[in-house]
């Protein structure tokens, strides 16, 4: 396998044809991010201010009840709140007091805006400021919007992290440091930390942190490396605070991970030979793990429906490391600033669609008869019933897929439906 040729500026003039669609979208809203964010920051609580639909959505996306009493809840608006009989702010204060009394271990409370709260223009940022004063220093209260009218699925994490950026302590020393941004499972984060350490990179921090009270510092020396592609707003906020963006392909697969590490090292003044020394062994291991699935997946035609914005990096991985043929790569939103390194590595002529018109996209998918369809859970069983093979895209968000040690697991997620089809004789 030859290394990925990454343009150092992360920006290539070559443009791919983009199909922009505005029709029915079959995607989650940003509230869904709470499902993984609350597990990452275990001293934080997420209070959605919304409707019964919001509560039902999170419950359905999370699976019914992982925890008896989770670190998220919904303050459900009722007709009294809407009719103005009850002052929403008084009601919210009451609900938050009740909540914080019940959960004294909570250190950060996120008030999460929803479609209804946005439409009635409930000012959660003022509420958050008021409550922060009231509950300081024990609890910090922040707000962001996870509403479907403003955010799509993973953009909820972007909005959440962006709301934390002003809280980051300033590092005015100008000392160099690396900030890795985006929720990763702890085990993956630890793997990356070991690699950075082996390269001699000190002062590597991860954001979001495992404890919401131990926020990383930011300043002019901070190099910002995204671990997830859907964090454009957070990136721009970090740059405003002095950070420098390190454009890179995302660390999916063996080659992707090396390219990502290489870009980070280059930005921090580590020479390529050191990176090669450190990465040689785990990269070879990842190639070995991938090899088994490459034989199964090579030449398979794959169609990706829009879901998490991970689609462009995933498509790059599927093409370069597994030899997959890309039929269509759908993404809910194409942020060139974050995904350009991966976008540049897609083969010329790849059909990319941004946004969605689900019925039209299903028509295209049926016409193409791909070997594997990567799509959401609302579409997967119906497509299977039509004889297509599917991989649920949400698993790509919830499973550890980043880094060398997960490269094989990531490939296996795509190979499993094919494997299953060959096993079944019913």
């Amino acid at each position: 396998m030859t290394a990925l040729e990454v343009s150092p500026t992360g920006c290539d003039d070559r443009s791919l044809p983009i199909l922009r669609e505005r029709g029915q979208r079959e995607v989650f809203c940003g509230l869904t991010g709470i499902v993984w964010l609350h597990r990452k920051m275990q001293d934080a609580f997420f209070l959605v201010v919304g409707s019964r639909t919001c509560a039902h959505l999170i419950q359905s996306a999370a699976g019914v009840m992982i925890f008896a009493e989770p670190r998220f809840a919904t303050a459900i608006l009722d007709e009294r709140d809407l009719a103005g009989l009850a002052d929403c702010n008084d009601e919210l204060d009451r609900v938050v007091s009740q909540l914080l009394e019940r959960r004294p271990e909570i250190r950060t409370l996120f008030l999460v805006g929803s479609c209804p709260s946005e439409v009635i223009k409930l000012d959660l940022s003022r509420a958050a400021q008021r409550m922060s004063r009231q509950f300081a220093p024990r609890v910090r209260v922040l707000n962001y919007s996870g509403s479907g009218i403003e955010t799509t699925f993973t953009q909820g994490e972007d909005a959440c992290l962006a709301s934390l950026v002003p809280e980051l302590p300033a590092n005015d020393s100008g000392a160099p440091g690396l900030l890795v941004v985006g929720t990763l499972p702890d085990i993956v984060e630890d793997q990356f930390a070991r690699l950075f350490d082996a390269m001699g990179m000190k002062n590597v921090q991860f954001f979001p942190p495992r404890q919401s009270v131990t926020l990383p510092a930011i300043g002019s020396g901070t190099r910002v490396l995204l671990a997830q592609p859907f964090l454009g707003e957070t990136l721009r906020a970090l740059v405003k605070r002095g950070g420098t963006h390190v454009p890179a392909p995302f660390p999916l697969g063996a080659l992707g991970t090396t390219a990502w590490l290489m870009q980070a090292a280059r930005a921090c003044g580590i020479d390529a030979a050191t990176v090669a020394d450190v990465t040689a062994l785990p990269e070879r291991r990842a190639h070995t793990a991938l090899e088994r699935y490459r034989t199964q997946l090579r030449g398979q035609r794959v169609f990706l429906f829009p879901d998490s914005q991970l689609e462009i990096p995933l498509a790059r991985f599927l093409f370069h490391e597994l030899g997959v043929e890309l039929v269509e790569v759908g993404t809910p939103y194409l942020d060139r600033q974050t995904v350009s390194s991966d976008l540049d590595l897609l083969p010329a002529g790849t059909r990319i669609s941004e946004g969605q018109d689900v019925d039209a996209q299903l028509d295209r998918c049926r016409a193409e008869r791909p070997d594997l369809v990567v799509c959401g859970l609302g579409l997967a069983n119906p497509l299977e019933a039509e004889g297509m093979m599917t991989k649920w895209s949400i698993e790509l968000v919830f499973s550890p897929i980043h880094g060398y040690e997960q490269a094989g697991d990531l490939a296996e997620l795509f190979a499993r439906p094919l494997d299953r089809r060959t096993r079944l004789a019913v």
Partner: protein
Amino acid sequence: MKLSVWTYEGPPHVGAMRVASSMRGVHYVLHAPQGDTYADLLFTMIERRNTRPPVTYTTFQARDLGSDTADLFKRAAADAYERFRPDVMLVGSSCTAELIQDDPGGLALALNLPVPVVALELPAYQRKENWGASETMYHTVRALSVAPATPTRAPRPAGQRARCNLLGATALGFRCRDDITEIQRLLTALGVDVAVCAPQGANAADLARLHEADFNVLLYPEIGRTTAEWLKRTYAQPCTRTVPIGVGATRDFVQEVATLAGIDLDARGGLDTFVTSNLPWYSRSVDSTYLTGKRVFVFGDATHAIAAARIARDELGFTVVGLGSYSREQARDVREAAALYGVEALISDDYLEVEAHVSALAPELVLGTQMERHIAKRLGIPCAVISGPFHVQDAPARYSPQMGPEGTNVIFDAWVHPLMMGLEEHLLTMFREDFEFADGTRSHLHERPALADTKAFSVTGVVFDEASGEPVTADVVAVDDMLEEAAPVVSTTAKWGPDAERELGKIPFFVRGKARRNTERFAVERGLAVITVDTMYEAKAHFGR
């Protein structure tokens, strides 16, 4: 504003989706923001539906709010009609669209579609899923029916078999698929034909001819009662009252049907010919004596909870220590039923309140929904699911109705299985001092795996190990629950003396928790600082069993 961690019912438009998804030739155009499409996966995942729900969402975004969301709705409705060509179209708003007041009904009428359009007004900030389903069914039937000036009904011609409709079964209804089959079998055996089953399986023409049947069989009152009552008022079409869940209720139901259909049961071999069940004998067999007086807590939708309480007391010999429902609309029925068991009904959709209730009652068996399954797991109490909301594991492949004769067999097995079998309980008592008989040894009951470092996450009920990405069993979730939140401990000022602690250790593990709780309560109530062996046995004598 109400703080909610888990909800028993979704918003009312999900109820409308259940009705639309149940029927053929129906399409629902829902004015809703992006994200509300999550509801599709309830159908495709929990029920493993092989088609998308027949729903078009407008998925408006913030930028549309400034321009013209009404126009967006009109385009979506017109496109949906062209693409799907339904026989009847339902239109409505989700919670957010309700706030922007675009009037989907009026907009859809303005399109002059060549099919009936049913405008659904489902107030999302007041009402919930089952009510939404009920209203949707009612308004759709009304829109498709021609009401006569006066409600009259000609007697059925002699020699013609009686015909009835089955009302209330929908997609995502608890065991609806099999209940329909079972009740159809029962009715066929009785000599009654089923004209229409609605909403499940019906099309627009079927709804229009509901009134032609001789009577209605109301299977799920939460969803079908409003329609059944309207049919009664409008067409003088009678309706059954008993929901045939359990032996007694099935017998009552058969008698009701016989009366409505003019069938002489005695001439046909008697009631027992039609209601054959293993439950009565299984319940009388000596092994079942261990079920006697087991304290059960029952919670669910009103219909299933009321039926379960009757079975629990009259057919299994349990003691009903609590009965409740999240169905506020049927609260009166639940309260009446609770009075029969000498308990106060718990009418609540607050999961934490239900949990506190279960915790305080410390029942030996919980009969509830998916929510109570988790409550029970956390508290270490056996549980069987009797009502929705349910999980993918409660949509079984095998035939497993709740209603009719076979339903009674399914219920016996499902409720008794989580409990220790009588013979085993006896053997455990005999062998408990054997050194090889370690605590926690259980025969047919599943062991909780020792996965202290497993972190599980879940997508629509399928639970995955966070590290491996492998799906894991429901029991692991319980382990995770325990890691996350320690089980509540009864607050006590009494300390266990070492002798008492040792004595407690000799009590079989499956009743030890109860003995501990009772003793502590006894000690606290009497202001005892230290629990001795005597305190323990005093408490045992005081509480009995």
